[in-house]
Every structure is written in C-alpha cells, then in structure tokens.
C-alpha cells in the first residue's frame, strides 16, 4: 500500500518535471485527414479517390499516342493520337463535378464525384478513403450509315465506380475500384449491355516529387464481347510533380481515355507488344481562397 502510494507520488512528481511529456498527455492527438493518397485526380486512366477541394478548378488533359510498334514510319505512334480535355471543379470539399471531350469516337462526358469518407489518423482514425464516381458518356460521332438516326439515349453509356484507397505509408498508396459500365447500345444482341470490372491501382513514391504508378482492370465478361478480342488494360507510369502541375507519363495497352473505352474496348495486348505511350497533364487553379 505504502509502496504503491510512493510510486504513484513519484510518477506524478517526475511527470511534472517533463512538461513536454505532460503536454502530450494533455493535448491528445486530434484526428487528422491523410493527404495526397494520390497526387492527381487520376491513378492513371482511372479516377483516384482524390478530388478538387472547394473552389479549386482542375484543367485535365490526357493524351494517348498510337502504337509504339509502328516504328519510325509513324514515329513510334506520335503521328496518331487520341486526347481528352476536361474541366473539373470542387463545389464543396466532398463534391466535384467535371465535363470533358474526347477525340476517340467523339465523346462528351460529364461526371460527379462524391468523396464522403476520408482516411484519417489519430484518435478514432478511419482506415480508407472512399469516393463514388457517376459518369455519363455520349458519342457525337456520325454512324457509318447516315440513315441510322441514333438518338441521344442510344449514344450514351454510364459508368459507376466505387473507389476505395488507403495510403499505407507516405510512399505507398493502393486503390481498389469496382466498376459497373452500362452501354445503352451494343454491337450485337449477344453483347452484354452491363459490364463489371475490378480495377487495381497503386502509387509508389520514390522521391519527394516523383512516383511510380500502376493500374490494372479485370473485365469480367471480356470473352463474351463480340468483335476484336478484348484485353484487360494494364498501365505503368511515373508521376512527376512541379508545384501546381502533375505530369503523368506512362505506357499502356489501352488507347481510349474514357471508362467505357479503356475498360471495355481495349483491343491491344501487352503480350503482342501492342503498347501506347501516353501522358496526362493536370493544372489546378485556385478560384476561391478560403475565408
């Protein structure tokens, strides 16, 4: 009894000596959100859990060149290219809206990204960040036979994604992206309208401003699709960051940039060496300062 009291008293007195230690006890670690799971709103092709914060506007540009294997004649694919430009705006810290235009099949697209759950550390931390993406894509291309008057509904596809990511360490982030794509019109009655795919993405930061990135989609019913055989898209690249720009430079077998294209319509294969060089440039403008 006495010893215990002595001990308690001693601990108390010695704790007083270490004011900084006492301060740590008093100021409990607050819950702090984890930043920069990915440095861009895209892992590479796929959207990442990241979004624009309130009042930030992103100008996003994607570019995919032709086949690397085309050799010198086409300058390794540089002569041919598909691109996509979009503007994406943070309405609130958890809601982003974007609209864009892709050259391949002349698509216009619009999306909403909801980011309700942010990974955070400290007291009552949250292990993952979750964003939901709802996207509509519509082709404005003329069909081969002008007598086909295809209405807007049939030109439209949808993509719903749940993006779940965790920054395991400052140098490692991983994302899982279950995806549902619905195409209102498909090539033949045998082609399924709805397609499920599971995306995997990762970022491995190796210097303060550069990271290795990788992304893969497994398309469940890819063998049911008619026409040219489809392949699962695999993309490997680097992120280079300079202030408010992020450059993403990569090699991929997917030539399309929008979800219905690169997930459901990739006809080139890594095994056959059918690869494309691509890049994304993201520039963020602050439209509204806090307070």
């Amino acid at each position, binding site marked *: *009894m*006495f010893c215990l*009291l*002595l001990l308690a*008293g001693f601990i*108390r*007195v010695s704790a*007083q000596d270490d*004011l*900084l230690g*006492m*301060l*740590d006890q*008093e*100021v409990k*670690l*607050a819950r*702090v*959100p*984890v*930043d*920069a799971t990915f*440095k861009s709103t895209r892992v590479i092709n796929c959207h990442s859990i990241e979004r624009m*914060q*309130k*009042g*930030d506007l992103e100008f996003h540009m994607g570019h995919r060149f032709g086949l690397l294997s085309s050799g010198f004649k086409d300058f390794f694919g540089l002569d041919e290219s598909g691109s996509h430009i979009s503007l994406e705006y943070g309405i609130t810290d958890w809601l982003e809206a974007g609209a864009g235009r892709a050259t391949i099949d002349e698509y216009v697209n619009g999306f909403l990204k909801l980011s309700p759950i942010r990974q955070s550390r400290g007291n009552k931390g949250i292990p993952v960040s979750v964003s939901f993406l709802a996207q509509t894509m519509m082709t404005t291309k003329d069909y081969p036979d002008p007598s086909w008057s295809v209405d807007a509904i049939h030109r439209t596809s949808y993509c719903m994604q749940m993006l779940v990511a965790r920054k395991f*360490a*400052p140098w490692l982030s991983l994302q899982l992206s279950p995806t549902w794509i619905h195409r209102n019109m498909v090539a033949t009655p045998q082609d399924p309208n709805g397609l499920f795919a599971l995306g995997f993405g990762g970022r491995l930061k190796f210097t*303060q*401003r550069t990271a290795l990135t990788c992304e893969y989609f497994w398309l469940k019913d890819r063998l049911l699709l008619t026409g040219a055989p489809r392949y699962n898209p695999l993309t490997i690249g680097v992120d280079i*960051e*300079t*202030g*408010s720009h992020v450059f993403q430079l990569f090699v991929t077998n997917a030539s399309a940039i929008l979800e219905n294209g690169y997930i459901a319509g990739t006809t080139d294969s890594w095994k056959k060496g059918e690869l494309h060089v691509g890049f994304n440039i993201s520039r*963020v403008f*602050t439209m509204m*300062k*806090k*307070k």
Partner: protein
Amino acid sequence: MMKKLAILFLLMVVPLVASTQDTLWFTRSGHIYFISHTDIIDIDANHYQVGSFFNTRSGELVFTLLMKSFQFTLPLAEEHFNENYVESEKYPKSTFKGKITGYDPDKLLSNADYPVEVEGDLTIHGVTARVKEKGIIRKNGDEIRATSRFNILLDTYRIKVPNIVADRVATVIPIDVEMVYKLYQKKEGK
C-alpha cells in the same frame, strides 16, 4: 501503522503536487501564424490548436503542435506544405522546450508588459535547433498572454525548396505566436 504512514505520506505529497500546479498555466488553443512572402505569391497559414505550458515559478515554456493542423489560405499550398516541405507524416509534430532567461516571477504580477527573452530547443521537420527569441508576457486578471514574433530559416530545419519554385517560397519565414494561458487544472474539460 500502514494506514498512518499512508496518511502521513499523502499529507506530505498532496500539498507538494498542488503547489506546483498553482504555478502551471496551460492552453490548448494557442495561435500561430506564418507567412512566406515573395513578389509572386504570399503563402500564409494559421494554427489555432497549439498546446503549451508555462511554469510561472521557473519560467519554463513548452509548446507542441500538429503540423497537419495548419490552415492555409490556399488549399493546394496546404497539401504541398505537408507532403513536400515539412513531411508531416514522417514528422507529425513540432515542439519547443525552453526557458525565459533571467526570469523574475515578480515582474509578471505587475499587470504590465514584461519583455522577455526565451531560450530553448525548437524542433521542426525532425531537426532541433537552439533558438533565442524575444517576446512579451502580460498577466491580465485570470489569464496570461504571451506573444512573440521571430524568424526562422528554412535551411536550419532542412526544409528544401526545389529550384523550380524557388522564387515562390521565401527562405526566411516570420512567425507570430499568441498564447492565452489559463491556470492549469488537471483533467481540464472532462
């Protein structure tokens, strides 16, 4: 016998603990502001959750803050600050532990500005440097107000600025500190 001893011990220890507590002043909502001023862009941030103890008997001062809790005027600057400059995940806290040099408790009771010099160890970005800065303390009724303005050099704390943004980030950062202490009560706010 045991009981008596225990009571005796309590009688001895309790006043001792109580008396040190009388001289401890505390805040968990101190304010720190800093600005990086260049011709191209001003980047500034506030922190409203600085924790600090001030021992009015010994003149000892300690501070602690979470780097992640700085609120920037530019949201993107906040991410860059944490991710690229101070590496908040690796070094989540910044601390100071020091003492007022030539401290005289009697000057604090005068209800007027007491200009002081504080010397101690400032830790930012995992680097600890010995600093000596001026400040003012003043007791007003049941609170003690402490303010200071001083500069830090990013170099001292090995915070690197890449060449490409060198003209956008100042190398000398002025820091404003404003603490309002209340008498410390254990288990405050519970």
